[in-house]
């Protein structure tokens, strides 16, 4: 292994590590506030760019979709309507949810009729975004005060459901998407896609944004308070349920935008989300699913390890990354008791 190879591997490691970092941050955020290990975040990551395919002019996407509304819009809208039924005791919320459900369909309809790519880009994010908080209301909120394990089982089930729906909505093929920034820049001798810089920029922005939100804004502090002491937060009028919506919403936003920025680099397909989600999870575990900075470092470590493993033995790349979990879990279980089952 010489320096040329190392620098190429490092460039790839940083790219995948950044995506894992974004997923790990979202996972830690959701876990801290709600105790849910949100496995299906990976699916949401690919849902957004796959939805975007439907909003692209056929000259760009190379597909004849004839103004078809993407399945994710139906899903998003359906989940919002079920949410409205569940919250039927609160008429004003029902009204808002119904309007939102119609709005999602409307936006998807507009997008599918053909819009400028930048507008389609935003519409794709907006259409997929409600799936996150709605999933919380429909699938996790009814299991209030369940154990971490119960939540995990629900999350894994949801992952299979969303992955299957992804196949139904988008078929098995990979799609090519146009980058926002085309071309490459040479850093030393390593060419880096300009689109990748957008991913890095967004990752830095996300970290800075989360940091400011959690340390400067009282809303962010309230979210932390819910994570630290649910009962204490409730006594002060901070509702853990609302905190859950906010956490799911922020995580979904981070993940969908990440997916949109990443898509031109990976040519997304329905099945790709899971591996991203799982590696983000491994990264989060390195920080015990409680520490944001450690999750980011863990993500970069996972990215680096993955490139090295791919170089040494490419068929075992993923297996080696997941094998990383074993020593980490062993080490963590020996030295910490942070993740308890208690409130």
């Amino acid at each position: 292994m010489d320096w040329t190879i190392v620098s190429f591997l490092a460039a790839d490691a940083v790219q995948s590590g950044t995506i894992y970092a974004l997923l790990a941050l979202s996972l830690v955020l959701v876990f801290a506030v709600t105790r849910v290990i949100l496995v299906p975040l990976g699916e949401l990551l690919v849902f957004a760019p796959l939805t975007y395919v439907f909003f692209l002019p056929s000259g760009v996407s190379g597909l004849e979709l004839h103004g078809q509304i993407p399945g994710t819009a139906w899903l998003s809208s359906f989940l919002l309507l079920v949410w409205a039924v569940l919250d039927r005791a609160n008429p004003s919320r029902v009204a808002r949810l119904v309007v939102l459900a119609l709005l999602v369909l409307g936006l998807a309809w507009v997008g599918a009729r053909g819009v400028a790519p930048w507008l389609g880009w935003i519409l794709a994010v907006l259409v997929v975004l409600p799936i996150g908080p709605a999933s919380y209301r429909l699938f996790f909120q009814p299991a209030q005060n369940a154990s971490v394990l119960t939540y995990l089982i629900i999350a894994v089930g949801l992952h299979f459901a969303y992955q299957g729906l992804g196949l139904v909505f988008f078929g098995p093929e990979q799609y090519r998407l146009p980058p926002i920034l085309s071309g490459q820049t040479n850093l030393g001798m390593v060419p880096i896609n300009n689109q990748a810089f957008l991913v890095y920029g967004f990752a830095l922005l996300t970290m800075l944004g989360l940091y400011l939100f959690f340390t400067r804004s009282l809303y962010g502090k309230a979210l932390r308070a819910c994570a630290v002491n649910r009962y204490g937060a409730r006594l002060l009028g901070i509702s853990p349920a609302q905190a859950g919506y906010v956490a799911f919403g922020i995580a979904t936003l981070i993940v969908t935008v990440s997916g949109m920025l990443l898509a031109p680099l990976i040519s997304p397909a329905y099945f790709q989300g899971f591996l991203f989600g799982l590696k983000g999870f491994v990264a989060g575990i390195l920080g015990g699913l409680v520490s944001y900075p450690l999750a980011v470092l863990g993500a970069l470590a996972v990215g680096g390890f993955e490139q090295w493993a791919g170089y040494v033995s490419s068929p075992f790349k993923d297996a080696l990354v997941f094998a990383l979990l074993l020593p980490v879990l062993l080490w963590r279980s020996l030295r910490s008791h942070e993740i308890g089952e208690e409130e």
Partner: protein
Amino acid sequence: MLMLELTDFSVRYGAVEAVRGLSLEVAEGEAITLIGPNGAGKSSTLKGILGLERSKGVVRYRGQELKKRTPEALAELGLVLVPEKRELFSSMEVEDNLLLGAFTRFRRGEKGLKEDLERVYTLFPRLRERRRQLAGTMSGGEQQMLAIGRALMAKPKLLLLDEPSLGLAPLIVAEIFRILGGLKSQGVTILVVEQNARMALRLADRGYVLEAGELVMQGQASELLHDPRVIESYLGIRAREEMR
């Protein structure tokens, strides 16, 4: 105006009825105490009021019957509990804990949070010294002060306290009750549940005595303080201890 009115109030823990047929009133500006031995159902009463335990009977708050009760909804209405275990945000700074006390007011866009923070710091100078410290690193007494200060930041119309003296040294208990007395004279309505009957009755206007889930006595705090049965059951041992 009556701040809180319980009528024929019962609380259940599974098969056990922890409180039976309790009726209780707290008028505006009053300090009321609910005393009784360990396991008498005092804390269960508070949990039942907040909707944390299943309860029967009528709960009226400021004249309105509250049927479905959750702690967050009651906090929004100005009914705030300082819980037995304080339930602080231990890995967050003292000042953040206090500011979060005012969360519902902040969300409503109310002004004057800075001034209220100052007021709490004046009340508890210790908290000002430690404003940047993590709440979990403070002593038990300081944590209790923070729990009370945090509840005050919500500008409660009715302040509920569950065993504020629990696990604290006598000097600190005295200080806490001195501060509660100060709050009472500022017009804060207080319902305090206590095992330390002497302290609680000195603070309160009226008292209720709970035993094995049932109301056994009620009356003016000054009378209860001199009632032979109360002295025998709740003050006697302590009185003897103090003689030594």
